């Protein structure tokens, strides 16, 4: 690992895609036009705009993408507003990768995978989904259940339609919270939709979304007969150093930045409910 980890590198924003009214996806490369560093799916990077702030963002692109990294970022606070306001060609600083990532080469290998995402929660999972799609031979069936407030709030909608849904062995189930003109798909909240779909119990679940969705979906999965050891999620708490030293992103004795952000629910069960 980079020993000067608190000193960031400079990255250039080469493309900005507007996903939804409040989510944009930024493409970032180093000054040399190459990827700034390699990562595993689920890992994060600290992006910053000097003078504005620094924040932890999950890397949305798959490691199999050899040209650049992508970050899907929702406009939420000070830093993200600034990021949303910038233009192509703007430089930002970047350091990483941080965190443990999903166990794509170990525990998840050979498994049937079920991805459950809500809203911007698709961002960290997209990295895994595309990784798994690119290494199709190593994994079983893939099912993706993704929900958002409305059709306009579905992140990566075009990619879902044009690529994921066209893949063999990939089943995509989309849902939105309320009826909307021009939407003939499913309407309803993610937890209920998961129960309706009644996925096969042999699947390993990767889940990310707002806390309230996670809470009810987990309860629903358990009702269906899933074990906590089958379900992974990825967390987010306030971070400053990203290397387990500044002391704020802990859940019990685990640091989300270093020991996480990916946790299996049976691991979280042994930790205080402070997230």
């Amino acid at each position, binding site marked *: 690992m980079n020993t000067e980890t608190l000193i960031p590198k*400079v990255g250039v924003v080469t493309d900005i895609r507007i996903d939804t009214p409040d989510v944009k996806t930024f493409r970032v490369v180093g000054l040399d036009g190459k990827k700034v560093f390699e990562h595993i799916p689920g890992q994060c990077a600290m992006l910053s705009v000097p*003078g504005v702030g620094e924040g932890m963002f999950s890397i949305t692109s798959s490691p199999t993408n050899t040209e650049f990294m992508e970050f899907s970022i929702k406009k939420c*606070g000070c830093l993200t507003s600034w990021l949303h306001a910038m233009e192509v060609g703007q*430089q*930002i600083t970047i350091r990483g990768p941080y965190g443990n990532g999903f166990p794509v080469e170990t525990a998840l290998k050979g498994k049937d995978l079920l991805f459950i995402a809500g809203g911007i929660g698709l961002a960290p999972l997209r990295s895994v989904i595309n990784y798994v799609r690119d290494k199709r031979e190593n994994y079983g069936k893939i099912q993706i259940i993704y929900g958002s407030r409305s059709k306009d709030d579905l992140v990566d909608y075009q990619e879902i339609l044009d690529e994921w849904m066209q893949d063999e062995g990939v089943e995509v189930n989309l849902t939105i919270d309320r009826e909307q003109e021009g939407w003939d798909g499913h309407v309803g909240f993610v937890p209920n939709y998961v129960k309706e779909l009644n996925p096969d119990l042999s699947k390993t679940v990767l889940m990310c979304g707002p806390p309230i969705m996670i809470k009810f979906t987990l309860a629903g999965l358990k009702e269906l007969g899933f074990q906590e050891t089958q379900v992974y999620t990825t967390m987010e*708490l306030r971070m400053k150093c990203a290397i387990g*030293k500044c002391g704020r992103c802990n859940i*019990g004795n685990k640091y989300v930045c270093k020991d996480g952000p990916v946790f299996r629910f049976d691991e979280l069960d*042994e930790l205080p409910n402070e*997230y």
Partner: protein
Amino acid sequence: MLKLSLKKLDELFAAMAQSQALYIPADNGGQAQYLRWAPGMKMTAALNTVRSAKDFFFPQTEGLVNFKMTGKTIEVIDPRTEAEDFVVFGVRACDARSFSILDKVFLVDPVDTYYQNRREHGTIVTMACRQPEETCFCTSFGIDPTHPEGDAVCWMTDDALYFEAVTPKGEALKEKIASLFEESDDAAVKAQQAETKAVLDRLPLHTFTAEPLGGDVLMKVFDSPSWKSLSEACLGCGTCTFVCPTCQCYDVRDFDTGNGIQRFRCWDSCMYSDFTLMAHGNSRNSQVERFRQRFMHKLVYFPANNDGEYGCVGCGRCLAKCPISMNIVKVAKCLEGELK
């Protein structure tokens, strides 16, 4: 063991300060603090400094990196210059132990090079305690205040200073000052240690132990109903964290100087409401949770991650300084009472 008459203490300081910076605990406006030695400066009579010695390796504010921004481009500048060698003289046993606790945070992978750099340049000369205060409880954490850790150790009797080098850094220092000393046996030191140990046994907190909290009790302690009443009067200030020798949490901030951006880190306190505040919410919304975090960290989380070693050295600073006199001993005793 080396011996020096106290009359020659100034000469010793002068010799130490010759090739490097020397810091000693001295009085500043009635408060003991580490000051850079200059001829004429006297050591404080106080047992310990108000601020701990962690400042030397983990200063309250420290520049991390500078940025120059022009148009859309950013230039990254490492602001560090060559660190100077320094000696800290008169560190107490509790503070000496705190360095090894801080090491377990900053020197584990990925190493914090800012801290490491300072650590490498510093030589710690510790001073055995003679007159502990009622707030002292370092023995509860297996620390012997009559024989502290450190690169070199000193004992001070009424008329003499005894010196013993422990590490290579201590030996290097010894070489520079040995000519001032004479060889001596350790009889006087032994006698003083025995005297001090008799006082230690009479300390009000000498039976205090955090042992019951070190076991597999994380969730039980976390869910204790006592946190509410313990934290009821907490003002949410940062006094305990800032005087604590082992508190190591920090914030990273940017300052716009008008000519560029300086990114610096500064001490932060888990007692502050914005410690875990994010744009979309806060994982520790009330003072109960923030208060709990601090004590859980020292008494439960840190031992869980570090083979049972507590994040407290029993220096007693928080006992003396908390505006509402709530402290780690009261908290630990209350929680231990519940575990029984």
